[in-house]
C-alpha cells in the first residue's frame, strides 16, 4: 500500500482534531492561503485546521491542467496542479493541519462543525470558522436546457476531472456552451483529450475573455464562436448526437457533436453558509461580507469564490490574506470591530452583484483595493458611478472593459467620498 504524504492516514497515532483555534472549511486556493496566513500570524501554539472533502486538497486547480495560475498571489506562473501543490505545501509548512476526505455536513453550534471522515463522525469546535467552500458551475438542469437527456453532457469541472485526474477519453466533437474565461479552459482541456471543439455558443455579443485568450481562441485553438446564440435543445438517445442552436433572429440549426460542455454560470457552494443562518447576498448568492470578510455570524468569516463566483484562483487566494486581521481581531489578538461594519453596497443592472457588500469608507479597503462586480453587458470603457442618498459621491472612467463572463474590478477608492453614516451606496454604469 502506498501512503502519499498528503493523506491524513499518513499520520497514524494522531487522533483527528476535535478543537482548533481556526477551522477553515475547504482546501482550495482561498482556504489554504487563509490557513497558512493565519497559522503564521497566530504562531506555533495555535491550531489551524483545514477540512477538505476531496481526496487531495488544492481545489479546482488540481484538475485545471493548464498554465496561468499563481500570478497575483505567488508572482509566478504555474499550471493548475502545480499551483495546488504549492499552496498545500505552504500551508503544511506554516503548521496547518490539512485533513482530506473530511466533509463538513452541518453545524453543531455557532462555531462547531459536524464532520464525516473515514476516521469517524465527530464535532469539531473552533474559536473562529472561515468558510472557503468555493463555487460550482450550474449544470444543465439548473440552466434549463431542454431536449433529450443523453450521456455526454458535462460541466467543465466534470470534464477536467475526467481528463486530468482520470485520464479518460471524453468524445470527438464537442460543443461548448458559454463564453466565460472557464469556457476557454474547457476548450484547452478538450484539445488535450483529443476532442475537437466544433462550436462555442454564447448569448453575448462576443466570447468574453482576456485578449490573450481571444487571440489564442482565434489563432491556435481555431474554435468557431457562435455569438448571440443559445442552445435550445440537446439531441440524442443514449449518447449526444447534436445540439440545436438558435440565433437571436430566431433562425435555428443543428450542430452535430458527441459531447456538450456547459461552462461557467457559477453559483457558490453556499449550503453550509445557509444552514448556519448566515445572511446571503441576493446577487452573489454567497454570504454577505464586509471588506474585512466578516459575515453576519460572529466569529464566522468567508473567503474566495464563495463570495464572488467566480474570480481567478489567485484573486480568491488573496482573500485568504485579507481575512487575517478580522480573524485575529475576533480571537482577541488585535483590535477590530466586533461585527460587520460600513455602508451597504448595491448595484444597478446591467451590474449583477458586488463583493464585498459592506464597506466602511474610512476603514480598511477591500482586498487589493478593488470592489469585485459582475456585469451582464459589455461596456468597452465604462464609467462607474457611486450614488448615495440621491447624490453621486464617486465616479471613475476605467481603462478596462466591463465584460460578461469575468469579474469586473472597480477601485474601492470610488467610495472615498461616501458618508460612513449615510444610506446605501448604489454602483451603476453611467
Amino acid at each position, binding site marked *: 500500500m502506498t501512503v502519499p504524504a498528503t493523506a491524513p492516514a499518513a499520520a497514524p497515532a494522531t487522533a483527528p482534531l476535535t478543537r482548533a483555534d481556526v477551522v477553515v472549511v475547504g482546501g482550495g486556493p482561498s482556504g489554504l492561503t487563509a490557513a497558512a496566513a493565519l497559522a503564521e500570524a497566530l504562531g506555533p501554539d495555535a491550531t489551524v485546521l483545514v477540512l477538505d472533502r476531496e481526496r487531495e486538497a488544492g481545489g479546482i486547480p488540481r484538475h485545471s491542467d493548464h498554465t496561468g495560475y499563481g500570478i497575483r498571489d505567488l508572482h509566478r506562473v504555474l499550471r493548475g496542479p502545480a499551483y495546488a501543490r504549492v499552496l498545500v505545501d505552504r500551508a503544511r509548512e506554516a503548521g496547518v493541519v490539512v485533513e482530506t476526505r473530511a466533509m463538513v455536513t452541518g453545524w453543531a453550534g455557532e462555531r462547531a462543525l459536524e464532520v464525516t471522515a473515514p476516521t469517524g463522525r465527530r464535532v469539531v469546535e473552533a474559536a473562529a470558522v472561515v468558510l472557503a467552500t468555493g463555487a460550482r458551475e450550474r449544470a444543465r438542469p439548473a440552466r*434549463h436546457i431542454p431536449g*433529450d437527456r443523453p450521456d455526454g453532457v458535462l460541466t467543465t469541472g466534470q470534464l477536467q476531472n475526467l481528463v486530468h485526474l482520470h485520464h479518460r477519453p471524453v468524445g470527438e466533437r464537442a460543443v461548448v456552451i458559454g463564453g466565460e474565461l472557464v469556457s476557454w479552459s474547457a476548450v484547452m482541456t478538450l484539445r488535450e483529450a483529443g476532442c475537437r471543439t466544433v462550436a462555442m455558443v454564447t448569448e453575448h455579443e462576443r466570447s468574453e475573455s482576456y485578449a490573450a485568450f481571444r487571440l489564442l481562441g482565434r489563432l491556435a485553438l481555431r474554435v468557431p464562436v457562435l455569438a448571440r446564440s443559445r442552445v435550445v435543445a440537446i439531441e440524442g438517445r443514449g449518447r449526444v448526437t447534436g445540439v440545436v442552436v438558435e440565433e437571436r433572429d430566431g433562425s435555428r440549426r443543428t450542430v452535430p457533436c458527441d459531447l456538450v460542455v456547459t461552462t461557467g454560470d457559477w453559483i457558490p457552494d453556499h*449550503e453550509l453558509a445557509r444552514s448556519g443562518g448566515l445572511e446571503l447576498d441576493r446577487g452573489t448568492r454567497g454570504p454577505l461580507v464586509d471588506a474585512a470578510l466578516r459575515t453576519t455570524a460572529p466569529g464566522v468569516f468567508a473567503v474566495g469564490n464563495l463570495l464572488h463566483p467566480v474570480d481567478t484562483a489567485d484573486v480568491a487566494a488573496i482573500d485568504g490574506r485579507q481575512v487575517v486581521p478580522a480573524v485575529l481581531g475576533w480571537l482577541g489578538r488585535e483590535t477590530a470591530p466586533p461585527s460587520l461594519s460600513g455602508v451597504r453596497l448595491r448595484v444597478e443592472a446591467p451590474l449583477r452583484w458586488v463583493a464585498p457588500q459592506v464597506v466602511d469608507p474610512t476603514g480598511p479597503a477591500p482586498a487589493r483595493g478593488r470592489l469585485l462586480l459582475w456585469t451582464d453587458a459589455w461596456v468597452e470603457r465604462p464609467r462607474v458611478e457611486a450614488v448615495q442618498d440621491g447624490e453621486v459621491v464617486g465616479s471613475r472612467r476605467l481603462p478596462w472593459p466591463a465584460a460578461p463572463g469575468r469579474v469586473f474590478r472597480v477601485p474601492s477608492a470610488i467610495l472615498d467620498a461616501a458618508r460612513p453614516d449615510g444610506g446605501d451606496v448604489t454602483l451603476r454604469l453611467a
Partner: protein
Amino acid sequence: MSTPSPAGAPRSVDVAVIGGGVVGTAIARRLAGADLSVAIVEARSDVGDGTSKANTAILHTGFDASPGTVESRLVAEGYHLLGDFAAATGIPVERTGALLVAWSEEELAALPGLRDKARRNGYDACAIVSAEEVRAAVPALGPGALGGLTVPGESIICTWSTTIALATDAVARGAEVLLEHRVTAVDATTDGSVLRTTGGDVRARWVVNAAGLHADTIDGLFGHDRFTVTPRRGELLVFDKLARPLAPLIVLPVPSSLGKGVLVSPTVYGNVMLGPTAEDLDDKTATGTSAAGFAFLREKGERIMPALFDEEVTTTYAGLRAAVPGGDYLLERDDEQHYVLVGGIRSTGLTACIAIAEHVAGLLAEGGVDVALRDDLPAPPRIPNIGEAGPRPYADAERIAADPAYGHVVCFCERVTAGEVRDAFDSAIPPRDMDGLRRRTRLMNGRCQGFFCGADAQAALETRGASLLAGADR
C-alpha cells in the same frame, strides 16, 4: 427455481412475468412466494427503469379515484400493503399528508364534492379548511388561496427503492431476474408459451404481461387487439434541497374546468418537486424535456409557491405514464393461452402494486394455479436507506467506526459514501449502468450533477465500487 436449461434448450419456468417495473416485480414476488418457479423478463438493463422510475412518488390513499373501479379498490388496499412492506424493508416513506388548495371560486366549490368522493372511496379523513388554515400549513404558498381540503394519509415514498425491494424479495423467494430480455415474439399454446427474447427463449406455463407502456404491444404478440397505450409525458422539476422547508407537505391542485393542475411535493431525498405536465405523445421513448414544459411549470409554480423559483433546479426529468382509454386497470386472464394481462396501470400503480399482485394471484388461482404462499418464506430484505427521514450512513458514527468506508463521502451533494456504492454492487440485483447506481444510492443526483464527483462516479461504476475503496485504504 427454474429448471436448469441444458445447452440450447430454453429456460423453463412456471410463470414468466414480462416487465420488471414496480408492478411486474410485485407480481413476481407474490408468485415466487408460492410453489412456483418465476422469471421476470425485462427488456431493459435494470428493474424499475421504465415508467416506474419517473413517478411523482406519492403513496396514495386513493381518495380521488373513481369510486367503484378496480383501481379505486386496489389503490386503497395497496396503500396499506405497500406501507407495511416499506416499514418491513426500509423503503423510505414520509407521512407528510397532502393539502388540495383551491385558487378560484370554482375550485373552492368543488371541495365538498371531493370530500364526498373520498368517502365513497372508503377514505373518511379529508377535511375542508379555511384560507387561513391553508396559509398556516404552507406559509410559502403564493397569494390567493381560498381554502383547501386536507388528505392526511397521503405520503411520499421512494419509487426506486420500492422496485428494488420488491425485486430483491422476489429473488430471495427464488425468482430469477432476466435483464436485457426484450420479448420479440410469442408462441402461445394451451400448455403455455415460448417467449422469444433478445436474451434467448423463455418457456413458461403461464405468462403475465406487466409491460407497462409496452403492454399493448405484448398483448398484440398474443394475438389480441384490446387497447392502445398512449404515452403521456409528464415533466417534473426537482428543486434544490435548500428549498425543502418551503414544502412541508404535498400541495395538490383541485381538478377544475381549467384542467388538471400541477403539484408541489417534498421528496424523500429532501428536495421539492414541481409537476407534472401532461402531454400525450406517440413516441414511447420520448423522455426529453421541452422549453414549453418548463414555461408551463414556471407559470404554474410561480403562482403556487413563488419562493421556489429563488432556488436552484437540481434536475428535471420526464416520465411517461401509460394512459389507456377508459381509465381503469385492465386485469384479465386468458385460459386458452395461459396468459394474464395487467394493463393500463397508471401512476397509481406504485401505490397499488402489491394489491395488483394479490389480484393477479387470485386470477391465476381461478385459472387452476396453486398460488398458496409457502410457509418457509424468507424474511423481507432490509434495503439500504436512501431517504432523509431515516439514518444515512454518513451521519452514523457507529457504522463509520465499524467500517470507515461509510465515512468516506464520495458524492458531496447527496452525501453518498464509498460503503454504500460498494454495497450496491454487492446486492442481489447490482446496477449495470450509472442510472442504476444513481437509483440505488443517489450518487450524482445532487445539485452539482457531477461537477465534483462525476469522474469518480464513472470510475466507480467501471470498477464496481473498487476505485473508491482503493482510495479509502490510502
